[in-house]
């Protein structure tokens, strides 16, 4: 054997030995890669950015100590509120960026598409943090999809539970004529009727999404003289609806419930134009409950981003906490182990109350707040008052109810 050949073999042996010694160590200490697909352009960007800020704030804290010797890093993709774009980006994140898990989005259609086309197909965990379609963890749920967002079933049930405590009998239902509106309406009515069988639905009206002028709808509803109205609206229609409720004097005369009507992101731009006496539900308010944890969270968030956190920031914050804790529990970066670890995991949310990732359907469980709008005594905007806290178990459909929809 020539000298050069010998030294070649020695060198090769050295490289192999070195890599065997060092590589496992390197892989153990590597960073956890989160791929975020969400809307960062167009009107829904407000929610996308709020969620991202909540996530970043949580990671700052988490990465100080690190997870499994590394950090949690993320990369974002703007799906422009389009299902096909979202799907392509989720695939790209998994195939090319090799992310360990996916997170997003505000678009229910996009979330369902990623859930089926990427999470289930490629066996990659996917946590939905803003989209509200109950099918995500309900009828179309599976091992690889999770949700930290409150969904239409929870929202509707919260409305039903809250309204059942009120004396109203004759209801009118009105809303945006698309899946979100109808899903909220169905869930609210089903739960209200179950809790209070003597309620009566005297009529329904549905308008197209973004309908600018809701006054004709309100005048015709008030002609029917209901005791209360369940409005099922969101997005741009929500603001139109609140403005019309105020301008027609409807809100002062007829009580109404609109899910997320007490959301600060909705009420603040309206200022003094927002109506009083409208009841709404939401999972997060930056001014309630006044726990030290919530105050600290709001302070840190305002310091970093200049405005108080909204519900997407809350959802994203608990998403980050769940991810970090699940990896710590799993002990290694492994997709299946991560799922086993996150099932049933409990973390302390930003308000100080516990949040659980329910094992049976992968839906996060947390309380909801049911409050009525009233002008802020000092500020020039409207806030929620007379807040009722509905516990997580009160507003969640039971495991049996959810799993029954999956068997259909």
């Amino acid at each position, binding site marked *: 054997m020539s000298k050069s050949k010998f030294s070649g073999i020695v060198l090769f042996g050295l490289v192999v030995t070195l890599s065997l010694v060092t590589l496992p160590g390197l892989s153990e200490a590597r960073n956890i890669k989160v791929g975020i697909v969400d809307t960062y*352009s*167009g*009107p829904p*960007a*407000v929610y996308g950015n709020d969620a991202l800020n909540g996530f970043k704030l949580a990671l700052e804290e988490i990465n100080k100590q690190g997870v499994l010797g590394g950090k949690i890093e993320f990369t974002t993709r703007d799906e422009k509120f389009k299902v096909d774009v979202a799907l392509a980006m989720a695939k790209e994140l998994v195939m090319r960026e090799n992310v360990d898990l996916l997170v997003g989005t505000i678009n229910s259609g996009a979330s369902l598409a990623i859930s089926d086309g990427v999470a289930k197909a490629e066996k990659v965990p996917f946590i939905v943090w803003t989209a509200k379609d109950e099918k995500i963890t309900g009828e179309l749920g599976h091992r690889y999809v999770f949700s930290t967002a409150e969904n239409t079933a929870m929202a509707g049930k919260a409305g039903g539970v809250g309204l059942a405590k009120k004396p109203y009998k004759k209801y009118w239902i*009105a809303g945006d*004529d698309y899946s979100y509106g109808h899903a909220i309406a169905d869930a609210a009515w089903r739960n209200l009727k179950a809790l209070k069988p003597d309620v009566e639905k*005297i*009529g*329904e*009206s*549905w*308008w*197209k999404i*973004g*309908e*600018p*002028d809701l*006054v*004709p*709808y309100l*005048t*015709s*509803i*008030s*002609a*029917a003289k209901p005791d209360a109205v369940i409005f099922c609206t969101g997005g*741009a229609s*929500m*603001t*139109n609806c609140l*403005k*019309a409720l105020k*301008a*027609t*004097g*409807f809100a002062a*005369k007829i009580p109404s419930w609109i899910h997320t009507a007490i959301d600060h992101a909705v009420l603040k*731009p*309206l*200022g*003094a*134009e927002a109506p009083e006496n409208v009841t709404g539900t939401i999972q997060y308010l930056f001014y309630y409950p006044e726990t030290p944890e919530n105050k600290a969270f709001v302070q840190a968030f305002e310091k970093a981003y200049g405005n108080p956190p909204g519900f997407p920031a809350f959802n994203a914050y608990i998403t980050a906490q769940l991810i970090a804790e699940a990896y710590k529990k799993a002990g290694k970066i492994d997709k299946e182990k991560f799922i086993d670890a996150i099932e049933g995991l409990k973390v302390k949310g930003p308000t100080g109350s516990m949040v659980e990732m329910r094992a049976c359907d992968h839906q996060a469980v947390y309380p909801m707040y049911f409050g009525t709008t009233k002008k802020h005594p000092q500020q020039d905007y409207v806030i929620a008052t007379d807040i009722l806290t509905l516990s997580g178990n009160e507003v969640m459909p039971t495991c049996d109810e959810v799993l029954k929809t999956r068997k259909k």
Partner: protein
Amino acid sequence: MAFDLSAIGSQFLVGLSRSMILFIVTAGLSFVLGVLRVPNIAHGSLYMIGAFSAFSITKLVPGAEGFWLALVLAPLVVAAVSFIAERALFCHLYQREHLMLLLFTFALSLILGDLVKITWGAEYKSIMAPKLFDGSVSIFGASIPKYNFFLLLIGPLVAVGLWLFTSKTKLGKIARAAAVDREMVGAVGINVSWVFAFAFVFGCFMAGLGGALMAPTISITLGMDHNLIIEGFLIVTIGGLGNMWGALVGSLIFGLTQAFGVLFWPQFAIVFPYTAVVIVLLLRPRGILKSVW
């Protein structure tokens, strides 16, 4: 469900006030269609710019003065934007076929939409009507916002103003003549290019006025242009392309069928105005009034 006369009366009034806004916006659209033969999809974007400009003006000048100032200045902002667009782009394209113009104005509407996003951001905006229009008036047993009465007043005023302008002023007459026969207008020595520029800017001014008037009743948001432009084209089509009075008739049909649809069959109210459009077009394929096309 029983319908008393009071409910019908109040629906009639709110439908009428909605028709007035539609009329102001579509009168401009129809004017541009008539004189320039341009199916301007970007008309909706100009309406949106009118609303956003009104927002900025009311932010700079708070209170009632801001609102009145916005009603005057916001349409002028839109007129300025449209003047630039006309001189830089449209004036070179009038001879192109309609499909090209349709695609071009569609592209322009996307560009304007993005410009609005860059200028004002993606968040919802909202402005308040002056205290004068705060609250509602109880009429026929229903509460109708005071602002809607203001719209009921503005609509006929605009209609009369348009009539005076197009039939009593020289410029108006020239514009009308250009709508019917543009070669003839050129042949008698009138600078058609500037007539077209004026007609375009005037039509867009109306879009801006509609946007500013509508602003206090809605959330000012990206996407409000698309909502309006589809209805706008349907209205000018059933009224008679390019006929301003057709825009009035079309707006009344659209606004009133919507309001009564909501009352009589609320689950399917969305369908009513569109059904009315189908019926009108089946009976009169070229629109109710004389089309200038």
